[in-house]
């Protein structure tokens, strides 16, 4: 049903026959009028059950303490940090698509940016949950901020963990703003097309009085570009800082300079895998394969391939340095990865992150949704395993054999991980239900221009 192009040009970014009006109707119709496919109800229902599981695990954590999780001595970091890094990494694709690709004028970002930004926002929420809950007393989390508290002391500014607080909170704020600012013209469309009073009021409030005036568009474009400019460094900085959490430590396997670049590449790698994971089913269920076209899938697959190689290069340099450094501990760490108790996870990581994505070299498979879905899932798993390996293998056997130990996620660790997956999916499904999952305003710019319409205006003159 998918890859065989039902329209002429295989590289088109928008199906044929679309005009400004059909676009508006199609995208806003999903929210306002269309009945939702059965799959929507099924997935949202299941996801909501898992989201409730998250609530349960968090309650249990509050009443019992973080001992319900797996971390122990010597493995003081476990699922909490693994999942934190995994989720925060996923968010990066959204920012890359919305900011960097916008500045680079990559038009193919247009139909996937909205959902990728939503994904970013929800992924950052899931990520942020972990360190906050790991404090054990999240109601005291404001201690992390440099405010004059009753302890008469500031946070430790020399610690990467405090840089993390700033990096992630800036990231969350900017992503949310970016998403919202982009949505404003679309809220106005929804407000104007809405037939129910509730919809009119809610979308009307969110639209902030948008009237499609030329002045509005002018300011909108400036704000949007400014935000894009602000988010661009964030794509690099956030995961760099996250990698410092490790690289600034002296544990074998952590203390390396290759961490920042390969963490950033890994984040984009993981993020694009998640964008594919989400957009392929949407394409099928909502029949928007004329908006998220094969060309989009093809481009995303290429990004996946490229960042996958950077990550693979990172693994290779890591392994090389272990021997080249001449440090016994580093060398042991590598051997311990290869044939220690967690060998299975390490080899699975190489398989899922490095080997399997190579099928994307074949152009046909880049447009085959089954192949793409397979690779996306493989990378989702692989990137999770990567963080597992980095954290658990390095910590469980460090310098002193007398203090070696083993780690396994507890029942509650797994429950919470499934819970965040459920929360993420629920949030995303609600987004699909209540917000335009493709930017109406921006898509209009892709419609072939009729003579008489000037270029550039994002459909300013269109509609009403």
């Amino acid at each position, binding site marked *: 049903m998918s890859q065989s192009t039902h329209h002429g040009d295989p590289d088109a970014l928008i199906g044929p026959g679309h005009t400004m009006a059909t676009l508006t109707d199609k995208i806003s119709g999903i929210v306002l009028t269309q009945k939702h496919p059965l799959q929507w109800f099924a997935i949202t229902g299941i996801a909501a059950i898992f989201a409730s599981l998250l609530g349960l695990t968090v309650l249990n954590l509050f009443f019992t303490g973080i001992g319900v999780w797996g971390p122990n001595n010597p493995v003081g970091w476990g699922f909490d940090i693994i999942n934190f890094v995994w989720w925060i990494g996923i968010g990066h694709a959204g920012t890359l698509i919305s900011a960097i690709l916008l500045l680079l004028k990559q038009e193919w970002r247009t139909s996937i940016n909205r959902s990728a930004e939503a994904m970013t926002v929800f992924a950052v929420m899931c990520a942020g949950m972990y360190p906050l809950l790991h404090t054990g007393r999240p109601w005291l989390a*404001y201690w992390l901020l440099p405010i004059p508290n009753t302890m008469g002391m500031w946070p430790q500014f020399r610690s990467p963990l405090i840089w993390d607080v700033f990096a992630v909170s800036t990231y969350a704020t900017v992503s949310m703003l970016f998403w919202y600012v982009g949505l404003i013209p679309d809220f106005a469309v929804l407000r104007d097309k809405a037939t129910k009073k509730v919809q009119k009021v809610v979308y009307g409030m969110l639209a902030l009085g948008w009237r499609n005036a030329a002045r509005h568009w002018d300011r909108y474009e400036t704000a949007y570009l400014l935000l894009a400019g602000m988010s661009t460094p964030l794509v690099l900085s956030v995961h760099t800082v996250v990698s410092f959490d490790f690289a600034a430590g002296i544990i074998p396997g952590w203390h390396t300079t290759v961490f920042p670049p390969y963490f950033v590449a890994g984040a984009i790698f993981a993020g694009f895998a998640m964008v594919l994971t989400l957009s392929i089913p949407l394409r099928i269920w909502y029949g928007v394969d004329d908006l998220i076209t094969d060309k989009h899938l093809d481009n995303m697959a290429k990004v996946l391939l490229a960042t996958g190689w950077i990550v693979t290069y990172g693994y290779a340099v890591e392994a090389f340095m272990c021997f080249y450094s001449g440090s016994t501990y580093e060398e042991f760490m590598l051997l311990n990865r290869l044939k220690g108790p967690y060998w299975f996870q390490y080899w699975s990581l190489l398989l899922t992150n490095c080997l399997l994505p190579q099928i994307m070299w074949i152009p046909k498979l880049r447009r085959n949704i089954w192949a793409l879905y397979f690779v996306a899932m493989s990378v989702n798993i692989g990137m999770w395993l990567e963080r597992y390996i980095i954290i658990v293998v390095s910590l469980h056997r460090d310098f002193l054999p007398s203090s070696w130990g083993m780690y396994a996620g507890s029942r509650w660790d797994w429950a919470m991980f499934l819970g965040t997956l459920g929360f993420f999916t629920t949030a995303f499904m609600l987004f699909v239900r209540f917000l335009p999952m493709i930017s109406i305003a921006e898509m209009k710019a892709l419609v072939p221009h009729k003579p008489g319409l000037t270029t550039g205006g994002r459909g300013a003159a269109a509609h009403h």
Partner: protein
Amino acid sequence: MAQVFPKSSNTLSKASIVVAGLVVAALGLATININRTTYVNTQSMPIDQVVQFTHTHHVGSLGIDCRFCHFSVEESSFAGIPPSKTCMGCHSVVWKDAPILEPVRESYRNDTSVEWTRVHDLPEFVYFNHSIHVNKGVGCESCHGRVDKMPLMMRENSLNMEWCLACHRAPEKFLRPKDKVFTMGWDPVKELGVSQEELGLKLKEENHVQSRTNCATCHR
């Protein structure tokens, strides 16, 4: 369907930006300051006891030395709370049948302790030691206030960490000669004609007083 919002809602929403800013600022200030209020740290609130013992009377009027009752304040981390025997030394003579003193007499007869409610109680994760403070010349008054003017014992200071640190960062602001540690209402300008600053720096030097702000000083 017609638009539901009239044009005037634009003004309203612009105003709401200002209001939102104020609300955020207020919340921030509240978060910072709520832990400093007496409501949270129960500072300056008299605490009800089984026997309404007053320091005003025993210290202020009778002039009994702190160490007569808080016997271990110079040698130990714990200042010491007097046993009923200490009270009965006088109260088997004065006020010997007063109903207010019945719990003291009863505990004396049964060889039990009077159940005082603690007024100062640091969390378990904080290590505090009276003897070092007393022996380096920090007066009871610097931490406990004018005890001789307290009809019922109350906490003069918050005992927040910032309070401990304010002194540990600059102990010279509080140091006094060692023989004045137990005196209430002592004032260097009146008694010696020197400013606290001058005296403090001198005493700091003489008694080798250190500024201790390492976390492990108090969290061991």
